[in-house]
């Protein structure tokens, strides 16, 4: 019987594309001259796994190409070839070629063999050239050999080692205290996860120690394990050559500590190559999230079982079910409070427990949907590099806060707006190098993407240190298009607002990058559809900053329940400034129409919810009810309600699924008693109320 391999094709393509993205990201981070060995490993793994996959599936051309690529990468990995600008360029091109080949194969189209063989030739030329003239840099990469030959320690514990109370991790740590230690783990004997016996030790180690350490000191570390392991301590013949093959070029000492600590043998732990745990200082850790999130699970064959692919539909279904469970649980809790009798206390205790578990369950399910924003950010390094080349500008891209997590739906929709913004920054914001130098700035402009949690929201900032928005030009353009009257004076904020108008562009000529006048209005619309907001600030000659504020998730909102008559409404906590009771007489009428009250020196209009929603209230007298001061779209209003009921997290349900959009309402939720409460959309509500006043 033969296995139909085509069923695995989709998974192979999907993984390969992801892996290529990771490879590209790693390439872009690769420092010319001083490459991070872990990055090279990442790149190597991608090439290797694509080679393996394509050979398995019979995609000969891809396999052959990746084989050449692998050869080149192997040279880089061993330090035999330095990472130069040329090499980096060829590698980036290889990513493109591999992507093109995979796409072609996926679409069952012929591969453009000419391009492939051209590049493959380039690759081979580079390899051949290097082999003729061994690079001095390769030698420089090697750690300075110490005077005495290094020790090699082979430590092969017996299975019962752990059961006898020995801890290999402790031994490795002690060894490291003796001197800088290199560790290689041997997981050959690791059985399948299903067969693993957690009490047994299946791992073995080969360690290297500096020559100065005395043999006695080394052996002492293993004193307690005597009889429970095979131990060989021997001098290495030639440290330099051996090292080059066995270990990566020396990372700084702290990295070694992490390496030594990394492979503790909680038996059953999957093998990690020793290089997989480099000690990263905070900045590099932040700068390379893909490595942590994407590449490792996708590429290292051994870590595959660490993650599974699940369709979003299944997760949504799970979310729905959990949402309903939460409602049922709230219903039970309410009911439980009314029970009397000997077992009531037990019942209530159980219900409290249930509530806690429910909350945890809900949070875990929410977290399943949350992904770090690096998934979006990772597309930018390449984009910025290419754009900068094309436009003849020098641009440094700074990414921070990439680990900030947000809901997948939000994540997917925020990508395009961010691309727009970054493009704009590069095309319009950052000046050409000569102009920058002339104005006393470094020739390379900086585009900074930052993400951070702020309260229940996530704020994504795109800023540049370019010329800033040209107020005069924006205004002139707006005047010429009749958007602004010739004599109107606008505040800065109002001028910046103009760029969000549909079809507005100040670009003198349309480039293929931006300037076609579609952009900022689309950005704003996309952000708004996610329940977010976008703000601009800019300083002439210093740069501009776009801040997008987004809800973390579209599924849950923290809300304050308010009562109006017999109805309950939810006001999102994020829009509430405070709630207060008005004294009688503190309300004035404006020209006999709108009511306003004084709040911290401002006069705010009052929106009577019962009027807007056509509900019979318990009271119409303002001092008998409460006023919730709420903010939306930069405006503050007082919402007049009968009473405040309580704060709770509510699951947002769409009204649009079965009904339609209602102005002033963003959705609905189901309360503990199973009834439906509407969730207010404060900006929309302000809009409705002002329309009513105007009418």
């Amino acid at each position, binding site marked *: 019987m033969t296995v139909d391999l085509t069923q695995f094709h989709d998974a192979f393509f999907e993984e390969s594309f992801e892996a290529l993205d990771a490879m590209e990201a790693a390439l872009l981070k690769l420092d010319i001259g001083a490459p991070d060995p872990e990055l090279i490993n990442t790149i190597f793994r991608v090439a290797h796994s694509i080679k393996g996959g394509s050979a398995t599936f019979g995609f000969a051309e891809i396999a052959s190409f990746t084989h050449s690529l692998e050869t080149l990468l192997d040279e880089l990995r061993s330090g035999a070839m330095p990472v130069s600008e040329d090499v980096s360029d060829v590698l980036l091109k290889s990513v493109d070629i591999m992507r093109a080949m995979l796409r072609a194969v996926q679409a069952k189209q012929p591969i453009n063999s000419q391009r492939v063989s051209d590049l493959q030739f380039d690759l081979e030329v580079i390899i051949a050239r290097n082999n003729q003239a061994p690079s001095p840099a390769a030698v420089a990469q090697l750690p300075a050999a110490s005077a005495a030959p290094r020790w090699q320690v082979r430590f092969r514990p017996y299975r019962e080692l752990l059961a006898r109370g020995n801890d290999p991790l402790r031994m490795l740590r002690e060894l490291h205290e003796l001197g800088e230690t290199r560790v290689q783990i041997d997981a050959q004997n690791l059985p399948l996860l299903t067969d693993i016996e957690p009490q047994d030790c299946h791992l073995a180690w080969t360690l290297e120690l500096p020559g100065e350490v005395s043999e006695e000191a080394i052996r002492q570390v293993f004193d307690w394990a005597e009889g429970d392991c095979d131990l060989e301590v021997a001098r290495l013949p030639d440290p330099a050559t051996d090292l080059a093959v066995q270990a990566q070029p020396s990372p700084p000492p702290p990295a070694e500590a992490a390496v030594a600590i990394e492979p503790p043998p909680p038996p059953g732990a999957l093998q990690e190559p020793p290089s997989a745990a480099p000690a990263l200082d905070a900045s590099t850790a932040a700068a390379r999230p893909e490595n942590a999130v994407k590449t490792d699970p996708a590429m290292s064959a051994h870590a595959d079982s660490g993650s599974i692919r699940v369709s979003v539909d299944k997760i949504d279904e799970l979310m729905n079910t959990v949402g309903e469970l939460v409602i049922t649980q709230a219903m039970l809790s309410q009911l439980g409070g009314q029970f009397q009798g000997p077992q009531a206390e037990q019942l209530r205790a159980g219900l409290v427990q249930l509530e806690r578990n429910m909350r945890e369950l809900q949070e875990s399910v929410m977290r399943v949907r949350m992904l770090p924003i690096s998934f979006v950010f990772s597309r930018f390094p390449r984009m910025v590099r290419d754009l900068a080349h094309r436009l003849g500008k020098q641009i440094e891209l700074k990414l921070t806060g990439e680990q900030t997590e947000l809901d997948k739906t939000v994540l997917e929709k925020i990508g395009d707006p961010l691309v727009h913004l970054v493009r704009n920054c590069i095309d319009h914001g950052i000046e050409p190098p000569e102009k920058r130098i002339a104005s006393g700035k470094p020739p390379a402009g900086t585009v900074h993407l930052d993400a951070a949690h702020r309260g229940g929201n996530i704020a994504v900032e795109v800023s540049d240190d370019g010329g800033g928005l040209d107020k005069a030009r924006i205004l002139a353009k707006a005047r010429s298009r009749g958007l602004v009257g010739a004599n109107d004076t606008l505040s800065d904020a109002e001028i910046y607002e103009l760029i969000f108008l549909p079809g507005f562009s100040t670009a003198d000529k349309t480039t293929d990058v931006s300037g076609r006048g579609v952009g900022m209005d689309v950005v704003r619309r996309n952000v708004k559809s996610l329940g977010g907001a976008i703000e601009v600030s800019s300083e002439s000659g210093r740069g501009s900053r776009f801040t997008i504020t987004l809800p973390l998730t579209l599924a849950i909102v923290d809300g304050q329940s308010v009562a109006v008559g017999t109805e309950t409404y939810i006001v999102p906590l994020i829009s509430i400034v405070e709630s207060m009771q008005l004294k009688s007489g503190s309300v004035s009428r404006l020209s006999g129409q709108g009511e306003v009250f004084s709040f911290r020196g401002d006069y705010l209009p009052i929106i009577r919810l019962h009027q807007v929603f056509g509900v019979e209230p318990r009271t119409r007298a303002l001092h008998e009810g409460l006023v919730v001061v709420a903010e939306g779209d930069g405006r503050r209003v007082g919402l007049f309600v009968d009473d405040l009921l309580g704060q709770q997290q509510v699951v947002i349900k769409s009204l649009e699924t079965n009904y339609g959009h209602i102005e002033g309402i963003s959705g609905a939720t189901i309360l503990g008693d199973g009834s439906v409460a*509407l969730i207010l959309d404060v900006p929309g509500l302000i809009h409705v109320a002002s329309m009513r006043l105007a009418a």
Partner: protein
Amino acid sequence: MSANIPGDQQRGGESRQVLTFVLGEETYGVDILRVQEIRGWSAVTKIPHAPPHVLGVLNLRGSIVPIVDLRMRFALERAEYTAITVIIVMSVVTSSGRRDFGVVVDGVSDVVDVNSAEVKPAPELGARGATDYLLGLVSIAERMVVLLDIDRLIGRDLSAIAGGEDGESMAADAA
């Protein structure tokens, strides 16, 4: 315009099951395949700016479902909602996809087999043009049953709410 009779009925002889219910003096029928569930009356949450016959929304196992009062839709005399008032939850197919909604009726009668050959077209009732949601009339046990096309009857209302005036104001919001 004449009654709208789906193709399979015109070929004749095919029978389908119809759920019949009572509104005042009249009996109506809808395709049983459209019926999701039948439940007792419970208080609804009002929705602002809704047409009068849309009473509000209910929680139907986690989804929010609008409730329509058919008496008000047909401009019949209003009845009190009591413990025996019934809500039939149905699904309609609209231009924007499947939507669920509930209709309030006086009571559910029966599920009957209706042979499409027996369905008579509904007579045109003047120029009101409001009868295109009638699939036809059929006589069951000497009672006239009015077969309803709920896609036309309710679906159109719902589409108007979803894509009509509110849709425009959404666009205005976004600008």
